C-alpha cells in the first residue's frame, strides 16, 4: 500500500490557476507607528478580586472600532472602545495623522465596561453620531448603552435615555437599519445573557421566553424615539441569547434587510427573514444545514460576485496543529445528538461559510474554501484588500488567556485551587488566572482566489503580528482608493494598517451615498454594478459589520479592471436609480434625490427549468438507532447509513418499470410497483423474513433463464458479527408476476459470511447466462482490513458457485470495496472489471477469455481515494465507456494530496483483542499525525495515558512517536491521496484521462450517480447526489450538497447548472433510478421523491 509516485497525466479543472505573485513586493499592509499616526490606543485589562474572567465570562472579548467622518471634512475619523478605561475618539487630520479629541468632544463614556460601537446618523441631521454598547457590570447598574449625539462642532452630548436607547442588557453591539422601509433608521440591540452558563439545563429550551431586560431587541424608530417591538416583530430575546454578532443585509434578493444573529455557547444562531410587513420569520433551520457552535462575529457580502450575499461566521477552531491538540475539545457524538434533540441544531466547532444558493438555501463551504479554522476568532470582514474585484477575508482573533487549555481544565484548574473557587471564600483569583497560559496568535487574511477558494496570505499581506485582536474596521483613511485597516487589541496597542493597493495597482470605485432624509447615509442601499466587460458586482451600504465595529460608510468596490460601470441602485425606500458608463478608480456620488437617475428595477430574466414536478413518494426510509461510534469508537464517519440503494426492472411483466428499494437493518426492502403517475410500495413475505439484514446493494437480472427479473440483494453493513447469518446475500427468484421466493443459497461464499457492498451482473465466460461480481465492504469491527471480491458462476438455472480462485485469483484481499462497474472497457466484446473502494485505487481487471487479470500498468491504481460510487456511461458519444467516479470531495476536514496523504494505521496496538484504526495525515515534514485528540486516542488505547500524561506532552506527537517501530511494522497502513470526484475519459486500450469534476460536484461525498440527456439537447448529462450526516462533530456532517446537475457542454466539458434550474434536493441522497422522463431519488432517513425532466 505504499504510494506509487508514478507521474500521471491528469487534466484537472484548474480551480487554482492564478499567477503566483512570488516576486518580493512590499506587503500590501504597512503597520503605522503610534509616532506617525498619533494613535496610542490600547485596550488594557486589569483583573481584580471582584471583577475577572471567573466573575464575567466575556472579560477577554475586547473592544470595537468605528470609522466615520464625524466633522464632514472628508476624512474618516476613528473611535475605539476600551473595556475598562476611557473610549477614544481620534480626529483624522489628513496624511494618516490623528488627534485625540476624546476629552474635548465628551465621548469618553462613563459606564463600567464598553463593548461594541457604531457610527450612524441617529438623529437624522447629516452628522454621524456614536452609539456605544456597555456591559460587564455584573452586580451594579452601570451598563446602560450610551448615545453620543454629534453637535456639529466636535462636541457630543450623551442622550441615550432621551432616544429610548439606554438599554440595560449586557449589550455586545447594535446595528441601525431601516427594516420597515419607512425611511428612518431602526435598531437591533444585540445582548448577551445575564445568566451564568452553568445554570442551564439543555432540555429547558428557553428560546421562546422573552427576557425583557437582557434579551435582544428590535427597536422601531417612531419620530426619532426608539420603541421595543421585538415581540410583535417575531424577534427572540431570551435568556439563552448569547449574542456576539448581528449582521444585516438582504439574503433573499428582495431588497428588504434580513438579520443574522450569532450566538455564543449552546444556543444556535438566528436567521430572520424580513416579511416586508414589519415582522420577521426566523428561518435558519430551513435554509442552513450546519452552523458554528460558539458563534462570534460574522460578516455578510457577495463573495463570488453572483449578486447575492454570502455569510461567514467565526468560531474558535485552531488551524495550528499544536494548538488544536492542546486547547481544543469537541462535543462527542452523544452530546451533539442531545443538542440536536433539544432543538439547538447542528452546531460545530469551526467557522462557517454559508454560500447563498439563491433559492433560500445555503451551502456551508468553509472546509472547501479552507477558512474553517482561524483559532479563537472574534470577527470577520469581507473586503477587497488588493482591489482585484473579489472580496478577501480578514479575521481578527486571539484570547488573552487560553481559557480552553486542556491541561488547565483537566489539572491546573482543579483540586485545591478550584475547591477554593467553588467555596467562594478566600479565593486567590490572581493565582487562578495567572495559571492560564497566554499566547498571542496571528490574525488571518485570506485572499479570495476565484469566489470559492481562499488562500491564507496573512504574512505576505503584512498582517502576521501575533496579537490579541478583537474589533476591527476598514476604511479609506487616506482617501487613496483602498481600504485601510484598524484593529483593537487587548493589552496591546491598536493596529493601524495602511493599505498600499492603490500604489501596487488594482482598480476600484468608491461611493458616496446620499440618501434622502432622514436616512442621509442611505443605510440599506443596494448597489449592482456591471462592467463593460460583463463582470458583475454587488455591494450594500451597511457599515455596521464584523465584531463590535462599524466601517467607513463609503462603500468601496475593488474591480477586475478599469472598464466603466453601469450601476443600478436600489434605495432603502424602494426607489431605483440608474447610472451608465461610470468611470472607475475614483469616487462617485449616488444621490437619491437625483431625478435624472430614477428608473424601474429590471426583471431578472427567467431561465429554462430542467427539472420540475418534485413530488414525494409514499416511502420514508428508516434506520434503527445504531450508533457506529459506540462500537467502533475510532471511526469518524458512520458506515451504517449508506442506504437505501435501488434497482429497477419490470418485475410483473406489465411493460412498466418498477423498482426495489433496500431496507436498513430491521426494516425489510420493498418493491415499488408502477401505478399510474406514482408507485405502490409493498413488502413481500420473502423480504420480511430477511428484514434483519442491511440491504447494501441489489440488482435485477434473469438468474434462472425463465425470462423474468430475479433479484440479488447484498447483505452488508457493520452491525453484525462476522458469524451472523444476517450477512448472507439473498437471491430472490421471480415467478413472472412479481412474486419472489428466496433461493436460500449461501452467497456469495459458502464457508464464511461476508459483509457485501456491491453486486454487478456479467457474463464473464460468455456462456449466455448472467454471472455475478460481488464485492466485500468494510468488515464489521475490522475497519481497514481488506475485503475480497468474488466471481459467482451461474449454472444457467440460477445456482451460483464461487469460482474466484480459478478465474480471478487476484481479487483476494483487495480492500474496502464500495462500488463496481462491469462494462466492456476495451471493446473486445467481453465484460471487464472496474472496482473502487475506501483507501483504494481505481482497480481495473481485464477479461482474458474468462480469466480476469489485473492490469499491470494501471495508473488509476495510484489514485487512492475514499471512492464511494461509480457510474459507467459513454459520455462523449465516441462509442467507448467512460466513468464518473464518486469520492469524498473537498468540503471536508480530511484533505489529501500526493504530498500530504491520509493514512490509516491498523493494529491491535494495546493487545486487548480489538483492532485500533488510527486515522492520520502525512504532513509536510514527512511524518504522519493522528486526527484524534489525546483523549480520543486514550479512549481507544488506554495505556497511552501513561505515555502522554498531559496535553502538552501529546501536542506534537506523530504516529512514529506514539507507537514503537515494532508496533508500526506489524500494522497495516493504508493511504489515500485523491479526494476529488472525477471523470475517467476512456482513451482506449485501458488508458484513461482523469478529470476532476467541477467544484460544485466536490461539496460532499458522492453516493449516487446517474446520466441521461436531462436537458434534451442530445448528449448525456450527469446528476450526482451525496451528503453524509452520521459524522463525528469534530469533522462535521457533510450536508452542503443539494444534488448536482452537470450539463454536458461537449468535449467532456461539464458545467454545474444553477440550482434554480430545478435540481436542488437536500438530505442524504443515496441512489437514483432514471426512468424515461423522471428520476427517482432515495435518501437516508428521509422520503423518497420523484422529479420530472
Amino acid at each position: 500500500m505504499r504510494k506509487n509516485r508514478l507521474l500521471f497525466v491528469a487534466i484537472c479543472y484548474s480551480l487554482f490557476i492564478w499567477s503566483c505573485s512570488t516576486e518580493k513586493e512590499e506587503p500590501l499592509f504597512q503597520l503605522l507607528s503610534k509616532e506617525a499616526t498619533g494613535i496610542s490606543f490600547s485596550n488594557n485589562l486589569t483583573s481584580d478580586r471582584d471583577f475577572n474572567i471567573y466573575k464575567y465570562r466575556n472579560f477577554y472579548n475586547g473592544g470595537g472600532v468605528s470609522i466615520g467622518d464625524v466633522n464632514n471634512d472628508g476624512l474618516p475619523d476613528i473611535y475605539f472602545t476600551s473595556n475598562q478605561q476611557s473610549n477614544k475618539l481620534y480626529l483624522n487630520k489628513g496624511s494618516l495623522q490623528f488627534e485625540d479629541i476624546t476629552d474635548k468632544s465628551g465621548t469618553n463614556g462613563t459606564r463600567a465596561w464598553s463593548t461594541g460601537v457604531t457610527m450612524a446618523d441617529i438623529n437624522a441631521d447629516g452628522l454621524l453620531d456614536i452609539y456605544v454598547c456597555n456591559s460587564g457590570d455584573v452586580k451594579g447598574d452601570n451598563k446602560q448603552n450610551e448615545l453620543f449625539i454629534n453637535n456639529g462642532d466636535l462636541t457630543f452630548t450623551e442622550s441615550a435615555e432621551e432616544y429610548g436607547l439606554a438599554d440595560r442588557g449586557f449589550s455586545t453591539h447594535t446595528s441601525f437599519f431601516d427594516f420597515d422601509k419607512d425611511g428612518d433608521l431602526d435598531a437591533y440591540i444585540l445582548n448577551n445573557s445575564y445568566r451564568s452558563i452553568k445554570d442551564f439545563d439543555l432540555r429547558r429550551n428557553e428560546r421562546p421566553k422573552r427576557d425583557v431586560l437582557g434579551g435582544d431587541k428590535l427597536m422601531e424608530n417612531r419620530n426619532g424615539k426608539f420603541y421595543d417591538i421585538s415581540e410583535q416583530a417575531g424577534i427572540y430575546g431570551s435568556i439563552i441569547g448569547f449574542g456576539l454578532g448581528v449582521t444585516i443585509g438582504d439574503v433573499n434578493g428582495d431588497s428588504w434587510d434580513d438579520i443574522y444573529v450569532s450566538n455564543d455557547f449552546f444556543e444556535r444562531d438566528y436567521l430572520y427573514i424580513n416579511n416586508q410587513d414589519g415582522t420577521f420569520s426566523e428561518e435558519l433551520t430551513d435554509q442552513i444545514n450546519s452552523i458554528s457552535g460558539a458563534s462570534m462575529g460574522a460578516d455578510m457580502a457577495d463573495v463570488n460576485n453572483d449578486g447575492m450575499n454570502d455569510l461567514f461566521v467565526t468560531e474558535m477552531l485552531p488551524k495550528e496543529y499544536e494548538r488544536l491538540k492542546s486547547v481544543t475539545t469537541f462535543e462527542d457524538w452523544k452530546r451533539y445528538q442531545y443538542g440536536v434533540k433539544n432543538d439547538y441544531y447542528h452546531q460545530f466547532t469551526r467557522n462557517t461559510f454559508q454560500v447563498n444558493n439563491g433559492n433560500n438555501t445555503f451551502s456551508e463551504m468553509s472546509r472547501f474554501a479552507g477558512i474553517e479554522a482561524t483559532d479563537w476568532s472574534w470577527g470577520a470582514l469581507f473586503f477587497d484588500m488588493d482591489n482585484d474585484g473579489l472580496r478577501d477575508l480578514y479575521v481578527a482573533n486571539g484570547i488573552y488567556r487560553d481559557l480552553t487549555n486542556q491541561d488547565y481544565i483537566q489539572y491546573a484548574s482543579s483540586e485545591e485551587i478550584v475547591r477554593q473557587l467553588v467555596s467562594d471564600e478566600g479565593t486567590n483569583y490572581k493565582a487562578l488566572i495567572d495559571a492560564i497560559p497566554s499566547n498571542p496568535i496571528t490574525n488571518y487574511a485570506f485572499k479570495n482566489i476565484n469566489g470559492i477558494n481562499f488562500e491564507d496570505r496573512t504574512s505576505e499581506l503584512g498582517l502576521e503580528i501575533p496579537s490579541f485582536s478583537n474589533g476591527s474596521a476598514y476604511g479609506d483613511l487616506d482617501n487613496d482608493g483602498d481600504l485601510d485597516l484598524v484593529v483593537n487589541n487587548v493589552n496591546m496597542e491598536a493596529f493601524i494598517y495602511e493599505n498600499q493597493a492603490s500604489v501596487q495597482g488594482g482598480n476600484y470605485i468608491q461611493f458616496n451615498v446620499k440618501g434622502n432624509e432622514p436616512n442621509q447615509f442611505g443605510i440599506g442601499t443596494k448597489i449592482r454594478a456591471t462592467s463593460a466587460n460583463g463582470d458583475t458586482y454587488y455591494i450594500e451600504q451597511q457599515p455596521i459589520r464584523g465584531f463590535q465595529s462599524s466601517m467607513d460608510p463609503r462603500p468601496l468596490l475593488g474591480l477586475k479592471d478599469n472598464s466603466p460601470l453601469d450601476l443600478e441602485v436600489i434605495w432603502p425606500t424602494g426607489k431605483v436609480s440608474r447610472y451608465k458608463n461610470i468611470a472607475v478608480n475614483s469616487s462617485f456620488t449616488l444621490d437619491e434625490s437625483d431625478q435624472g437617475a430614477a428608473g424601474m428595477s429590471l426583471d431578472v430574466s427567467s431561465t429554462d427549468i430542467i427539472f420540475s414536478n418534485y413530488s414525494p413518494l409514499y416511502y420514508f426510509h428508516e434506520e434503527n438507532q445504531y450508533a457506529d461510534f459506540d462500537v467502533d469508537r475510532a471511526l469518524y464517519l458512520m458506515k451504517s447509513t449508506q442506504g437505501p440503494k435501488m434497482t429497477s426492472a419490470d418485475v410483473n411483466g406489465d411493460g412498466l418499470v418498477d423498482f426495489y428499494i433496500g431496507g436498513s437493518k430491521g426494516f425489510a426492502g420493498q418493491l415499488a410497483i408502477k401505478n399510474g403517475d406514482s408507485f405502490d410500495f409493498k413488502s413481500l413475505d420473502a423480504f420480511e423474513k430477511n428484514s434483519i439484514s442491511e440491504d447494501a446493494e441489489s440488482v435485477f437480472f434473469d438468474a434462472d433463464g425463465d425470462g423474468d427479473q430475479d433479484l440479488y440483494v447484498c447483505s452488508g453493513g457493520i452491525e453484525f458479527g462476522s458469524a451472523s447469518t444476517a450477512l448472507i446475500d439473498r437471491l430472490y427468484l421471480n415467478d413472472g408476476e412479481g412474486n419472489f421466493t428466496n433461493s436460500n443459497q449461501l452467497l456469495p461464499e459458502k464457508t464464511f459470511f461476508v459483509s457485501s457492498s456491491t453486486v454487478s451482473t456479467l457474463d464473464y465466460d460468455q456462456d449466455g447466462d448472467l454471472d455475478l461480481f460481488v464485492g466485500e465492504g468494510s468488515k464489521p469491527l475490522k475497519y481497514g482490513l481488506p475485503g475480497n471480491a468474488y466471481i459467482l458462476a451461474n449454472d444457467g438455472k440460477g445456482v451460483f458457485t464461487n469460482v474466484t480462485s480459478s478465474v480471478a485469483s487476484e481479487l483476494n484481499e483487495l480492500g474496502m470495496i464500495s462500488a463496481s462497474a462491469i462494462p466492456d472497457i476495451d471493446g473486445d466484446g467481453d465484460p471487464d472489471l472496474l472496482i473502487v473502494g475506501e483507501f483504494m485505487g481505481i482497480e481495473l481487471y481485464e477479461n482474458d477469455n474468462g480469466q480476469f487479470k489485473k492490469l499491470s500498468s494501471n495508473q488509476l491504481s495510484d489514485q487512492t481515494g475514499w471512492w464511494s460510487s461509480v457510474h459507467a456511461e459513454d459520455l462523449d458519444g465516441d462509442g467507448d465507456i467512460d466513468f464518473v467516479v464518486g469520492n469524498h470531495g473537498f468540503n471536508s476536514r480530511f484533505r489529501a494530496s500526493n504530498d500530504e496523504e491520509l493514512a490509516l494505521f491498523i493494529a491491535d496496538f494495546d493487545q486487548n483483542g480489538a483492532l485500533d484504526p488510527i486515522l492520520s495525515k502525512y504532513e509536510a515534514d514527512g511524518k504522519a499525525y493522528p486526527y484524534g485528540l489525546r483523549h480520543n486516542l486514550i479512549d481507544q488505547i488506554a495505556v497511552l495515558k501513561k505515555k502522554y500524561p498531559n496535553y502538552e506532552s501529546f501536542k506534537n506527537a506523530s504516529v512514529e512517536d506514539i507507537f514503537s517501530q515494532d508496533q508500526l511494522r506489524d500494522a497495516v497502513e493504508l493511504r489515500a491521496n485523491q479526494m476529488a470526484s472525477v471523470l475517467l475519459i476512456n482513451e482506449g486500450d485501458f488508458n484513461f484521462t482523469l478529470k476532476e469534476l467541477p467544484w460544485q460536484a466536490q461539496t460532499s461525498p458522492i453516493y449516487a450517480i446517474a446520466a441521461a440527456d436531462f436537458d434534451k439537447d442530445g448528449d448525456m448529462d450527469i446528476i450526482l447526489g451525496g451528503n453524509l450526516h452520521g459524522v463525528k462533530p469534530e469533522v462535521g456532517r457533510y450536508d452542503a450538497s443539494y444534488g448536482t446537475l452537470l450539463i454536458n457542454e461537449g468535449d467532456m466539458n461539464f458545467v454545474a447548472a444553477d440550482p434554480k434550474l430545478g435540481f436542488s434536493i437536500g438530505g442524504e441522497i443515496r441512489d437514483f433510478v432514471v426512468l424515461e422522463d423522471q428520476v427517482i431519488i432515495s435518501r437516508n432517513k428521509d422520503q423518497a421523491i420523484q422529479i420530472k425532466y
Partner: protein
Amino acid sequence: MKRNFLILSLFSLLFVACDSGEKSITIPADVYHQSMDKLSDVIVHDIFSPPVASRIYAYPSIAMYEILAQNNAEYKTLSGQLTELESIPTPEEEVSYELAALEAFLILGQKLIFSEDRIESYKTELYTELQTGVNKSYFNASLVYGQQVADHIWAWADKDNYKQTRTYPKFTVTDDPTRWQPTPPGYFEAIEPHWTQIRPFAIDSSTQFVPERPTAFDMNPKSQFYKELMEVYTVGNTLNEEQKEIASFWDCNPYVMNQTGHIMGSTKKITPGGHWIGIIKIACQKTESNPMKSAEAYALTSIALADAFISCWDEKFRSNLIRPETLINEHIDEEWVPLLQTPPFPEYTSGHSVISNAAAVALTSIFGDDFAFDDTTEEKYGLPVRSFTSFVDASEEAAISRLYGGIHYMPAIENGVTQGRALGNYLVNKIELRNESLAQSKD
C-alpha cells in the same frame, strides 16, 4: 506530606545505625497507610471512575497482604481462595517482608494508575528515609522480591478482562423512555457498561447477587414508580441542614463539573470506594493495628469493594434505569436540580449503598460491631468530620445520602443495601484469613 516524613524521620532514629547496615528494617503501619493515601491522591488526580478505582485498590492490597502473610503463621494465603490466584513466589534470599510488601504495593499501584511519576517521586523520597542504616544488599533483595510478587500479581490481574473491556461498545442512548440517558451538566457517557465482564475476586460470578427487580417504570401518577419518583423530588425540596450535610459528605463523585463562562473547571474527590479505604486507615490507627492486620483489613475490604462494584454494575446495565433528575425535569419540574450532580451511569442499584454495606460487613468482621469512629476522610476535600457508632451505621448513612442527594429512588437504596450485605456476608464466610477461625481471633 511534610509532616508525615517528620514522623518517619523520628522512626528512623530508632534504627540501629551501623556502617555495614542491619539486616532488619521496621516499617511502621503508618507508612502503609500513607502509601495508600498516596494511591488515593493519584486516583483522584487521574480521575478514575468508582468501579475502576476499586480495582486499583484491590490488587496492590492483595499483594501486600500475601507477602506479609508469607511471614506470619497466623495468616492464610489468599491463593486458592480468590479466582485464579496462584501462590506467590517465595524469596530466594533473606529479605524484609515488610519492605517487599510495601514495594509490591507501590509497583502495582504505579502500574494501575496513569501519573506514574507521582508514585515514583513519593517512593524515592520514602526509600531514602527507609534505607538509612539498613544493609544495602538486604534492602535490595527485599525490593527484588517485592518486584517478583508484583509481577506475579500483575500477570494475574492482566487476565481479568479489564484490558479487553476498554474498547467494548459504548452504551447506546435510544428513545426508550425508561432507559438511562446522559444527565446535566456534563452529559457524560455511561461509565463502564461492561464491568460485569470483569473477573470477580471472590464471588462466583457477577450475577451471584442479582437484586430484586426495580419498581416497574410507570409514569401514571398513581403508580408505585411515580410515588418513588415524587419521593426523590419532595425529599430533595425539603432537605434540612443535616440531610444536606449527609448528602455532601457521601457525595464521593470523582469528577464534579463546574462551568464558569468559557472556563470549565472540575472538583475532584475520592470515590465511594476511596472513602472506605480512608475508613480502614481510621480503624487501623484507632486500634493501633500492626502492618499485618492493616494489610488484612485493606485486602478483605478492597476485595469486598471490588466485587460489590462488579455485582452492582452488572445490575445497573441490566436494568438501565433512568435517573430521577431526567424524569423530574421532563415531567414534574423542568427547573429542578438535585443537590448532588447525578453521576454518569444507570440508576439501579445505588453503588454507594451496595459497596458501603459490603465494606461495612468486611470491616465489622475484622474490628467488630459497635466500632465507633470519627470519619475524617472527607476533611481533605473541605467537608466536616462525621461520627458513627459502627461501620454499619456509616454504611446506612451512605446509602440514604443518595436519596437526599436527589440521585436515587428508594428501592435502589434499600435493595442496594441488601445486595451489598449479602455479598459482604458471603465474602467474610468464604475467605479465610486467619489460621484459627476469624471469630475467635483477637489481637
